[in-house]
């Protein structure tokens, strides 16, 4: 059974959770045997941009040094046999240079989404 998780909300609670929780659960489900891919749209299209980092955040004197690495999550995910699609129009409207993305991700046009989604048994929009 092929499964697609669509992530639209970029960097949702990533400082508290130390990762994107949907990318995380996608990893966990794949580790449990799921055949699963990701589609990034809206603000989440920034995840495959190389060179991003998070400085430690300090609140109330408590420094959080184990920062989230969302880009690393995507790199690890796409490097293990799963596909990661990125909606091209959402990159363009944010001025994101396509050459800065991980080479392994697949940039797709929004008009092609129906065909892509029809190839999956389960599609979850997070």
């Amino acid at each position, binding site marked *: 059974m092929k499964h697609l998780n669509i992530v639209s909300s970029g960097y949702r609670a990533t400082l508290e959770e130390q990762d994107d929780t949907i990318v995380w659960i996608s990893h966990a489900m794949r*580790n*449990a045997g799921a055949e699963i891919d990701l589609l990034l749209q809206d603000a989440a299209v920034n995840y495959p941009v190389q060179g991003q980092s998070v400085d430690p955040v300090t609140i109330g004197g408590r420094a959080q040094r184990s920062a989230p690495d969302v880009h690393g999550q995507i790199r690890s995910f796409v490097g293990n046999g799963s596909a990661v699609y990125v909606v091209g129009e959402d990159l363009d409207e944010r001025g994101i240079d396509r050459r800065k993305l991980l080479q392994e991700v697949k940039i797709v046009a929004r008009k092609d989404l129906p065909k892509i989604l029809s190839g999956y048994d389960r599609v979850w*929009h997070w």
Partner: protein
Amino acid sequence: MSKSKTFTVVLMDAPFESSRTTTALRVVDAALKRGINVNVFAYEGAVLLPFKHQQPHANAVHGHDVEQEDHPLPREWVAGMIASAKDAGTAFEWINCGLCVDERGAGECIDGVRRGTPADLWKMATASDNSLVVATA
């Protein structure tokens, strides 16, 4: 589990934060009443939906005491669905994401709620006729 259809729902919002959760629980309740087996996987803040220490409160703005206000509690909705599904012989499973529970200190849940992992979600979804994610915006 009976031979009727099975539906898996993922909830993500914390209680008292989003009308979508209330709507989703109404959908779950309606499905159970139609004899459809339902699985719920509570992820992130949704693990607090069956938290056993939720308490009703009075509302001075409404001029109501606790009894008059009759404040809704998601734990009561969940408990009610667990009980009614049991009476009807319909399968209803509520699984809280274990790590989400730990980071929130939300381990004290009502009876009938089970701790689980994303692997449980995957198994439930795979065995279901359909599934729905109600994510935090």
